[in-house]
């Protein structure tokens, strides 16, 4: 029998019993819809976390001062500060797996303008800082290497500072005071928003680290050194490299590290693996309803075979082979489950969009989920339709014709 007439025949007999077809399809619709929504929510959460981590910086590696021991009792992190600009310079010149290195000197002081003042964090950094943090400026520019060398009093303001002290005007070119020291504003940073722990990253002023050492902090040790690995796959090796350089430069010999090298990937991996486990779990629960839907199809197809015994007899009498009958019933169940899958897909996408809108969640459905859902529903149709179809094909035409 031709494929076209087979499909017409199958859809025809599906349409002859609309109510029942709809109820049968409902199982698959709900199953596929649930899978899509769950995957969309889980995937969206993962994307959101990835974006947050990316926001911290590109392949960010942080070197912080280590601990010291006083009379055998460890004093905890950052109690012994021996990070210097020389360390940062040595890392920058010796490391092969890093694309950027910046020392960071952190102080807090009052920003004073003609209109008001604002207490904030002042970070003394090098020109590599913005590329490490994956950050940009909206106005003006970052200070130059020349500014750093000359220890010029230039500053780049974070978006929160600008919002509070320069609500109506572009601050670039204006004079401000950081504490008692006058600075010239050369740029404004793009808004970066909050970190996942709620710290406003825009409440900051960047100045050359040389200027910060000289004029603001008054000490030479660094708060941290930030570095950026050339590529994500080099993260581990780059950290090892930094560690080697640091140990060497500190002449540690057999003593333990007096610094800590960390990256964000550990946090990122933990977060993404948690969400991917959640996504998998949700999808697994949702697929149970898909299986239940498949059993519903099998149930209805078995009823349908019994109910249509006489029809099967007629078809066989006029020349249908067993395989023709088998194919017909199989096509019917596959068409039914595929149709359910497509409707479920639409409902799943709609549901994900509504959830995203109402709950404010990020939702994202990977294209592969679409193919998997549709393919899976077709497979459900074949799997659960085969037994009833084979039962129909094995009927004896004489018995089937006499069936009342």
């Amino acid at each position: 029998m031709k494929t076209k007439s087979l499909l017409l025949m199958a859809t025809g007999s599906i349409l002859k019993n609309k109510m029942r077809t709809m109820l049968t399809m409902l199982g698959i619709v709900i199953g596929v819809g649930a899978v899509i929504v769950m995957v969309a929510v889980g995937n969206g959460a993962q994307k959101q976390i990835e974006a947050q981590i990316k926001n911290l910086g590109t392949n960010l590696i942080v070197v912080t001062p280590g601990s010291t021991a006083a009379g055998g009792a460890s004093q905890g992190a950052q109690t012994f500060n021996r990070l210097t600009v020389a360390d940062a310079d040595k890392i920058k010149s010796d490391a092969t797996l890093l694309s950027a290195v910046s020392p960071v000197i952190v102080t807090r002081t009052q920003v004073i303008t003609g209109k008001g003042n604002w207490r904030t964090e002042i970070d003394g950094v090098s020109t590599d800082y913005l590329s490490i943090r994956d950050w940009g400026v909206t106005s003006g520019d970052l200070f130059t290497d020349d500014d750093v060398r000359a220890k010029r009093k230039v500053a780049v303001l974070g978006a929160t500072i600008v919002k509070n002290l320069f609500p109506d005007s572009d601050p670039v070119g204006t004079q401000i005071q950081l504490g008692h020291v006058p600075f010239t504003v050369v740029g404004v940073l793009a808004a970066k928003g909050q970190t996942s722990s709620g710290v406003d990253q825009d409440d900051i002023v960047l100045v050359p680290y040389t200027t910060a050492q000289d004029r603001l902090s008054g000490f030479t040790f660094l708060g941290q050194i930030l570095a950026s690995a050339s590529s994500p796959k080099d993260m581990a090796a780059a950290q090892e490299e930094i560690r080697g350089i640091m140990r060497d430069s500190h002449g540690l010999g057999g003593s333990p590290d007096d610094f800590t090298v960390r990256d964000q990937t550990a946090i990122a991996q933990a977060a993404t693996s948690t969400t991917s486990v959640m996504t998998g779990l949700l999808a697994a629960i949702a697929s149970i309803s898909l299986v239940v839907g498949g059993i519903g199809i099998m149930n209805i197809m078995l009823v349908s075979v019994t109910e249509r015994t006489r029809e099967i007899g007629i078809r066989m009498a006029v020349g249908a082979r067993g395989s023709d009958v088998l194919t017909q019933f199989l096509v019917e169940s596959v068409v039914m489950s595929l149709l359910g899958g497509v409707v479920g897909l639409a409902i799943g996408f709609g549901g994900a969009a509504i959830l995203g809108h109402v709950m404010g969640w990020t939702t994202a459905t990977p294209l592969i989920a679409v193919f998997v859902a549709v393919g899976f529903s077709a497979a459900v149709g074949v799997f659960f339709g085969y037994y009833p179809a084979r039962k129909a094909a094995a009927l004896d035409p004489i018995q089937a014709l006499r069936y009342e």
Partner: protein
Amino acid sequence: MSTPVIEISGVKKVYRMGTTEVFALRGVDLTVNPGELLAVMGSSGSGKSTLMNILGCLDVPTAGSYVLDGVRVDGMSRNDLADLRNRKLGFVFQGFNLLPRTSAVENVELPLLYDRTGRWKNTRELAADALRRVGLGERLEHQPSELSGGQQQRVAIARALVTQPTLLLADEPTGNLDSKTSVEVMALFQALNEQGITVIIVTHETDIAQYAHRVIDVRDGRILKDHAVESPRRAADDVLTMDTDPDAVGTGATKEAA
């Protein structure tokens, strides 16, 4: 003499019911030539239904040989039997056996869709032609539930005709019809037979058998009597005389009278 349409010899059919064996056919020889209009008569339990199933290639004999239009049928596989039914046979049943909720023309088209030789083009058009041949050209899109008994049986006859079969097999074709509609259906069989189609009608009604040219009596699994009818009645003439009977009741008789 051309090849016989049917040639069976020594056909036996034994059904096993637990440990006992039931002999439905105990050795039947029969030859049917092209163009015959044959009635197979017998009461229920006589074995005529079993004979009909074997002739219709729905069942295979336990013993004996069956040659249909030059093709050896006994020993064929299920699939080959299905193909043979499709190519050489047309069935008409007592209960009409049309697909419900399916239009007349789709019902008639059905056997053409199961053809494996690829000899039919425009199957829908051929089905419509067959329906016109049985006088239902105006009812193509009607579903069985919208047709009278007589009309349904004519759709069934059209379905049997549409593949241009060698043999038309009718199993109690008038069993569910009132007497006037029965005669009309018999008139249709006679007309088709005159066009050269071989027809075998299984019936237990003597007044239906009298329209055949040859009658076979089956009893206890054997052919008891095989005789030619001297001058068969013409159903078409009988229909005219029955027109005067206003009290004809039964399945669709009044609708059919139009």
